[in-house]
């Protein structure tokens, strides 16, 4: 009986701290909304139209921050995976898997917005250039990460296996980049380096890009937080259901 009471006490205190965190989260949501709206205004109204590429160039303000955040997400997966393998606490697994889901979403959007820009500018949807190919391989690795979780026979096994893949996949990325880079230099030079693009940005464009980076980072932090708290709620639900089943079983036994 005593143990049940202490359970309830810890439950209420954690709910209280969570509602406090929840209001902090809604502040973050509001900030993300406001910044993203302002970001859209800057991108579509305020930023000057690029002389050569025209309006298509505005994709860059979305494309580049998302690519950056995708890499950040995969780095978080790596850190979360290592911490999970070390500590075996489910919160690290929640962090890693939430970041992996976001990373896959952002990488998919990068792979979609890239060709939309590439078709009018390069004249082709896709080129097997080093950066593009590495991004594609990266996307495949983390899609297989999510598949591995989905196909695991139980959750702790999925957490363990995906943490292993989270480490191996991340270590593999620089080797992939080297390989692809050499492979491409052998056949053709880069059509257009993104580096040359950034050099040609004027001050207003650069401001817009940096603002967009900030706005997307806020959005990303909110999404990550939201995803983690969803997973935490799922786990709470599961443990409540489990304890209910346990007491029911105990009654039958009695």
């Amino acid at each position: 009986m005593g143990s049940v009471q202490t359970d309830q006490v810890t439950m209420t205190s954690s709910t209280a701290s969570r509602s406090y965190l929840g209001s902090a989260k809604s502040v973050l949501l509001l900030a993300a909304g406001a910044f993203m709206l302002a970001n859209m205004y800057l991108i579509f109204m305020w930023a000057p139209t690029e002389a050569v590429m025209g309006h298509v160039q505005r994709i860059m303000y979305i494309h580049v921050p998302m690519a950056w955040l995708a890499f950040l997400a995969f780095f978080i997966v790596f850190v979360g995976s290592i911490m999970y393998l070390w500590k075996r606490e489910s919160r690290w697994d929640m962090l890693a898997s939430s970041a992996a889901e976001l990373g896959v979403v952002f990488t998919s959007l990068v792979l979609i917005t890239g060709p939309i820009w590439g078709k009018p500018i390069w004249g082709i949807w896709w080129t097997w250039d080093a950066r593009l190919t590495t991004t594609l391989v990266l996307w495949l690795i983390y899609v297989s990460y999510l598949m591995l979780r989905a196909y695991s026979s139980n959750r702790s096994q999925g957490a363990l296996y995906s943490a292993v893949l989270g480490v191996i996949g991340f270590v593999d990325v620089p080797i992939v980049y080297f390989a692809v880079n050499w492979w491409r230099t052998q056949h053709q030079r880069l059509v257009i380096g993104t580096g040359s693009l950034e050099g040609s940005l004027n001050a207003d464009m650069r401001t817009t890009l940096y603002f967009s980076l900030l706005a997307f980072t806020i959005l990303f932090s909110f999404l990550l937080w939201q995803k983690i708290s969803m997973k935490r709620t799922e786990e709470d639900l599961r443990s409540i259901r489990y304890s209910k089943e346990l007491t029911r079983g105990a009654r039958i036994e009695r």
Partner: protein
Amino acid sequence: MKEFLRPVFLVTWKDILLELRSREVVIASMVFAVMVVVIFNFALNVTPETVDILAPGILWVAFAFAGVLAMSRAFVIEKDQGSLEGLLLCPVSRDSLYFGKMLALFLFMTVVEAVLLPIFAVLFDFSAFSFTLIGVILLATLGFATVGTLFSSIAVNTRSREIMLPVLFFPVITPVIIGAVETSTGAIGSSVNVIGVGRWLQLIAVFDAVFLVLCPWAFGLVMEE
């Protein structure tokens, strides 16, 4: 060192004995690889003019697919009759188990490739006996076996393991496949290799070294339960 190597060789020997009796892995993946080669011949319409460009790619697709077939068997045979638990109960380290299984897989794949390569050389008319080609085949196969053993042990415990293994394996192994194809192109003949065979061999060797450290560690974690 001897205490470490003995169980490794015992595990490898166990797999070899099993293979000698059942002949499941080597024959099956050999036949499969020949089929891949034949189908690619139709799909790409290989002519004497294009053979230099196409042959290395076909060779490595055949090797990689046959390799995946072999590595998927590596842990299925342990799982089927619960002999994995027996292996895990043995008083040997997880590392010895890993290297034993890896060595066996490496051997099977090498045997398959050793038979395939002359057939391939006859079909596509190139000289199979270049040291570069044999060197890159050994290095790349070591990479395949290193990563493959770990992923096979992971995939065997998931639902739909036949799908999971290639999905896990191919993205991670990309650099080895690129390096192997590029080196073979240089070895088989025609194209000018800007980067140089040596650099590619180095890249594959670096891949092997990194994963020869990482995979036994990960295998120990995966095999905990």
